């Protein structure tokens, strides 16, 4: 069966510091991968998605970037964090390739607090 891992679960960072959140998927190959941010009391905002290694699409302009160095690894980064980057970050995967309308499956999230 497929599993998705996100770490760390909780992170407290000062303003201006760098960020690296990691997400890995097991039990599947060539998945689509997604990064979402969920602000308190808000819905999910899609930040990035990827349909293959090195292929990143950004949904909103922001202080963050994403990379996919390996097939089942998705990394969310920032060079200098802003207060507005605080939130709950969720990684998700879905079947890639020619599958249509596949559901997304989520990790347990990372709670990021910026001081």
């Amino acid at each position, binding site marked *: 069966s497929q599993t998705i891992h*996100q770490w760390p679960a909780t992170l407290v960072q000062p303003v201006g510091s760098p960020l690296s959140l990691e997400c890995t998927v097991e039990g599947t190959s060539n998945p*689509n991968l*997604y990064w979402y941010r969920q602000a308190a009391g*808000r*819905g*999910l905002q*899609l930040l990035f*998605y990827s*349909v293959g290694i090195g292929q990143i*699409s950004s949904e909103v302009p922001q202080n963050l970037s994403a990379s996919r160095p390996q097939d089942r690894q998705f990394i969310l980064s920032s060079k200098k964090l802003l207060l507005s980057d605080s939130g709950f970050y*969720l990684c*998700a995967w*879905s*079947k890639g*390739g*020619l*599958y*249509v*309308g*596949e*559901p*997304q*499956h*989520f*990790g*347990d*999230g990372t*709670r990021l607090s910026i001081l």
Partner: protein
Amino acid sequence: AQSVTQPDIHITVSEGASLELRCNYSYGATPYLFWYVQSPGQGLQLLLKYFSGDTLVQGIKGFEAEFKRSQSSFNLRKPSVHWSDAAEYFCAVGARKTGANNLFFGTGTRLTVIP
């Protein structure tokens, strides 16, 4: 463009009572529709999905949802709510295309269950 509206931000029901959470979508064709549940501090768990065929869809944990094309709705129901159902519920719509299976989420409905 796709969009999802969950008109109820917060719903409170008594344990054992029936539940209906509303979801309206906007999409130019027959969409893929999903309901997810999120417990505090956790990721999202897929409850059920609609692709085609029978418009009444059964999911996990005793939930069901009915797709009504004429009303552009996909409401979630449960005949008898348990205290463990207290959580945030998200409706999502996906496009019928290959490649990235991007989903558009509603802003969620928080369910409180009282004894």
